[in-house]
């Protein structure tokens, strides 16, 4: 059984869908965060696989950008989550709708 590029792409698609569904159905901000990371890394996987398949260094280059952005996003995001949790124990994202119209 040869593991072809399609397998990686399929895995990426499955991981992305899991992340997307998780983001939509879970209310815990921390879990939602992990789902976002899952989606980002699913995309990274896709970039790497296609980069290897097509022999294009651009795919792997993009992954670095995504990783850097994701790291920055995590720093800010986690700080926000911690700040929220200090004020309101066990808050879900649905409780944080004060900016709703």
């Amino acid at each position: 059984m040869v593991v072809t590029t399609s397998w990686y792409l399929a895995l990426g698609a499955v991981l992305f869908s899991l992340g997307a569904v998780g983001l939509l159905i879970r209310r815990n901000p921390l879990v939602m965060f992990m789902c976002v990371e899952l989606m980002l890394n699913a995309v990274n996987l896709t970039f790497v696989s296609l980069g290897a398949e097509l022999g294009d260094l651009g795919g792997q280059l993009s992954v670095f950008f995504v990783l850097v952005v994701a790291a920055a996003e995590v720093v800010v995001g986690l700080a926000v989550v911690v700040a929220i949790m200090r004020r309101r124990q066990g808050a879900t994202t649905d409780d944080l709708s004060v900016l709703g119209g």
Partner: protein
Amino acid sequence: MLDLVWLIPALPLAGFLVLTFCGRRLGEPWAGWLATGAVAGSFLVTVGVFLDLVGREAHDRRSVTTLFEWVPAGDLRVDVGFLVDPLSLTMCLFITGVGALIHLYSIGYMHGDGDFPRFFTYLNLFAFSMLMLVLGDNLLLTFLGWEGVGACSYLLISFWFTDEANATAGKKAFVTNRIGDWGFMVAIFLTFFTFGSVAYVDVLDTTAAGTVAQSTATFVAVMLFVGAIGKSAQFPLYLWLPDAMAGPTPVSALIHAATMVTSGVYLLTRINPVIADAADWVPTMIAWTGAGTALFAATIAVAQRDIKKVLAYSTVSQLGYMFLAVGCGAYVAAVFHMVTHAFFKALLFLGSGSVIHGMDGDQDMAHYGGLRRFMPVTAGTFIIGWLAIAGVPPFAGFWSKDEILAFAWNESPLLWVVGLVTAVLTAFYMTRQVVLTFFGRCRFADPRPDEVAAAWAARLIRADEAVGAARIAVDDAEAAAEACRGAVAAADAESVGDAEAAVVEAEGVLAVAVEALAGAEDLATDVRAAADARAELPALALDGVPDVGALADELPETVATRAAHHPHESPWTMTIPLGVLAVLSVLGGLIQLPFSSTTKRLEHWLEPALFHNEVHLSIGAGTLWVLAVVAVAAGGVGIAVAVAAYGRRRIDHTVFERPILAEAWRFDRTVSNLVGGPGRAGFEATAAFDRRVVDGAVEGVATLVRREAGVLRRFHNGLVRTYAVGIGLGAVGLVIWFLSRSSF
């Protein structure tokens, strides 16, 4: 001395600033002396500059002194600078000269007024603005002064602003002048548009060279004319001037007779090259507006009873003469009449102020009469002013008016006829004023019609009360008699005799009471009949008040008080200006005598300001003599008729005092009704349009946005996951779109 010209407006400005900040501390009379000193100093500087200029050659008598750059805005460059030429200097001479005299007079007139320093603050500000108006070297600076004098006029008309009528008069003057100012502003814009400059030197030299299109010159001239008729109170914008008499009398003399109201004539004289380049109908229109206003205002002055109203309409009429002169191209005559008018009209106004001062604020000529005995100086100087305005030679007014009439004849005999009729009316109403005020029977102690009517009403009430009291007495007596009769019936044999005696006594009392009642009723009937039959008191009682002797005891105490406090002559601060102005009113004609070229001093002096636009008479010396004799005869007729009507009482004076004339041809009221009726409806319709359509459109947009936003905000619910769905659906949508566009 020419370098010091900036001092002329600077001194009154300094006076104004000092009085603004320390006026209250200075108080009376020092605030007044400071203001007077500032204007008098200004006059001395003006005389110095005049002496410097008068010896020079014609082309050398015009100079521009620039102080600093005022408005450097792109192509528009406006400097603060002074155009010193014979015209502006002539204006300055009488503004500061007559102004200083009126300042001095005001110290006496305003004595005891709580706002004494404020009055002089405004007067100095006025002097500064007026000097800027005439000295400014460009239209914008003149406009600055123009608005400054307008503001001072407003402030001084409503000086006693606690009285509603005074405040309203001030507003009326201000609002009416706005129409004229609109014309002035349009003219400034057009001047800049055409010449690229608003400086007189550029505008006048360019127009004098004849390189300006006739249509442009016409438009500028007409717009400046609109400005001039507003400020100089010509028909139909004269309405504010009679109301402006609500201000203190020195203000009427300074602003509303001698200086500010002549600024329209000054402006038209200043721009004479523009008028010369304009279409032919422009000067004709100016001449006819002036002649029409002169006649119109003179007819109104005939029937006024308020001493200041007569002079106000007279001022409008005399300004009409000046416009007539400008329209005929007789600029020298216009300036000449402006100067002599400043002398004699200031004199007349100050004289009337002195009379009002002596009469404790009463302005109704019906209450004057015979005042020459109480105020000889005022009477003597006023009579000189009267002879001057009535055109009696050799007083100043004769020379200037005669010159205007000669030029009117030169232009069109019809204009001359209008001017001549005005001269007759002028002589008539001024004689009427002098006779009513200073001659004839003293009327100040007379009971006034309303006081007599009140006395009669009180007497009627008392008679009715007596009838009522008598009636009650009769009723009481009847009741007593009845009681006595009852006592007779009830009495026994012993006391019946006493009781019957009591009845007889009671019936006797009753008979007396009935008699008294009849007497009281007769008396009441008599009083009522007398009250009904009493002679209606005339408003103007030249012959004496008919038969008030019977009422003498019942008249209110004010009548006796008036009789005890007879009028008094004014203090020296007021009489000295009167004397000086009287001398000037006698000698004013010397500056321009028509006999030979050398005696026409004003004409030679003004030459550089007139650009050879002065029209020259094409009529012979013989005709001139005839015209002068006719003018003098016309004045004589006016004087004779007035003396016959008011002095000798050979003619019934009510013939002349028609109600329609007293109400100023109802023009004022018609305008008020028009503006108040259809005008107001129009304004309200405009306001409604603004509310419904303009505001409606704006508010409609706002309502629409708010309603749409109400729908859209539901999507923005603050739930992160909803947004995530949105992003997801959007991403899917984009993918579908890209796929549908790709060609595989």
